[in-house]
């Protein structure tokens, strides 16, 4: 695809969040009749959704509805859990990520992730950001100092930490740690960034900084974010998926549509706080 095309889509994102202009989007991640089981318990039930490129897609729903499970299927973090069993398809650019010839390590180099609880490594700020480039063997191909600076700027953290790059990442505040984790995720330039309730452990000011950051990130990355906070989903996302109890994807549509005029009564009940 030509770079011009990319830019067009990028501009569309900005208009679409305000002006609601509909365009066919390039699908990056698509699930097809995805079922996930933890032992005998079903966590996801027949989930099919297509996640568009360079947009923020939010997944909302009550606790235990499987939204984090879905997120962790995309970069195969569920592989860490022995009892987890996956059926159906989950495609990244059309390739089923659960095919035998897909190495989950390679997959995760294209799909970064930010977790609920900030989890910087007990290393210096610099080493935290450089970690991905080093383990992926890219550290020799790039100017590491520039790459670290660029990632920290991208995560809106550079100005706060540029004089203390050698101090431990654990010395930062919670909000700074989370932005450090975002810098770590974007330093290797993945295509998709998964965010698992990235602001739920943060105070409102730190959370709003992350939200602003997500709005910037979407110009270069596809963002898939799980959130407990419906206002947050309404504020930052272009599309919203509503999972309800039983691991069922009840409705997936443009965010405005979901919050203003959902198709399903159950979704409306959830959004208006009648349950969940």
């Amino acid at each position, binding site marked *: 695809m030509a770079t011009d095309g990319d830019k067009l889509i990028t501009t569309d994102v900005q208009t679409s969040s305000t002006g609601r202009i509909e365009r066919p989007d390039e699908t990056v991640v698509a699930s097809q009749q995805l079922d996930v089981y933890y032992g005998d318990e079903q966590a996801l039930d027949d989930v099919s959704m297509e996640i568009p490129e360079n947009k923020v897609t939010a997944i909302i729903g009550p606790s235990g509805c499987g939204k984090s499970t879905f997120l962790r299927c995309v970069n195969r973090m569920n592989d860490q859990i*022995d009892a987890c069993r996956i059926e159906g398809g989950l495609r990244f650019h059309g390739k089923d990520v659960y095919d035998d010839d897909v190495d989950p390590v390679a997959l995760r180099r294209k799909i970064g*992730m930010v*977790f609920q609880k900030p989890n910087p490594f*007990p290393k210096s700020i610099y080493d935290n950001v450089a970690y*991905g480039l080093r383990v992926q063997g890219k550290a020799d191909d790039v100017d590491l100092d520039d790459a670290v600076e660029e990632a920290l700027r991208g995560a809106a953290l550079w100005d706060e930490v540029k004089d203390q790059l050698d101090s431990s990442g654990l010395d930062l505040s919670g909000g700074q740690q989370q932005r450090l984790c975002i810098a*770590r995720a974007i330093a290797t330039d993945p295509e998709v960034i*998964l965010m698992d309730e990235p602001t739920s452990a943060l105070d409102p000011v730190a959370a709003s900084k992350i939200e602003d950051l997500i709005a910037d990130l979407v110009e270069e990355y596809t963002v898939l974010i799980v959130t407990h906070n419906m206002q947050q989903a309404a504020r930052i996302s272009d599309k919203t998926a509503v999972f309800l109890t039983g691991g069922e994807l009840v409705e997936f549509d443009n965010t405005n549509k979901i919050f203003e005029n959902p198709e399903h009564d159950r979704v409306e009940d959830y959004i208006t706080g009648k349950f969940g």
Partner: protein
Amino acid sequence: MSLDTETSGEADDEALFTEIDLGWEHLKNRIFLGIIFAASMFGVVMLALLLFDIITDFYVGMTEFNISMGDFLTRDGSRREELSGFRGAIVASIMLMVLTAILSFFVGVGSAIYLEEYAPDNRVTRLIEANLANLAGVPSIVYGLLALAAFVNGVGMGPILLAGAIALALLVMPIIIVSTQEALRAVPDGVRNGSYATGATKWQTIRKVVLPAAMPGIMTGTILALARAIGETAPLIMVGALFTNRMPFGPLDRFSAMPTQIYNWANEPSQHFIHLAATGIVVLLAFMFAMNGIAIYLRNRYETEV
């Protein structure tokens, strides 16, 4: 007496709790506190008594038997009490510690990494874990017997320092494994997930994130295990580390380490040797306290991390 509402309220307040008598309950609390405090002081008192006993013997040895600390640390053992020193034993003990550390550290840490990071939860793993708990409880003399049978006589090494180091390495290995497992378990899973999500392989995650984070704990456990090994007497006696007064120059030399030398002296009828033993104990305790001190320093230095 006529009372307005306010004063009658005060009168009620005074009477409010009077029917609750907690005197006996509070007394029981104090008695129990006294008992458990005495229990916790018991060990401290015993250690103080022990130290006092050794220090008196040490002092008497320095004054009445004219044991000079300088000579004591620079002379080897001897049949003649006034010429006897501790140098050979100190050197032997240090060499033992170094060899024991080399022999036990890599195997111990390696198996801990396997058990904690790789091993599936199956019958074999549980067997290894149970075996480990049993090994940690095996009396140290049994390790001495094993080294005697397998290495000193079996392989034909003879009563050399390497055989003693093997016995001590077997002895401390379960301790190193268990403390390394605990240190690895203390590394939060979030950190591991962060590494995997960044596109690291399992080995990269362990080598670059988990092990560095766990290393202070591993070092602390290893030093504490070695501090236990340096005072072990029984396995060295079994290996044959007795009646040797020369300083060892390598792992293949015959030797007598600090605890065996003390044991040897303490069995002598001469009072002079008894006080040499007391002096040796002071040196040995100094080594142990120094090692424990390093372990505590490492623990405090890094405990805020992760």
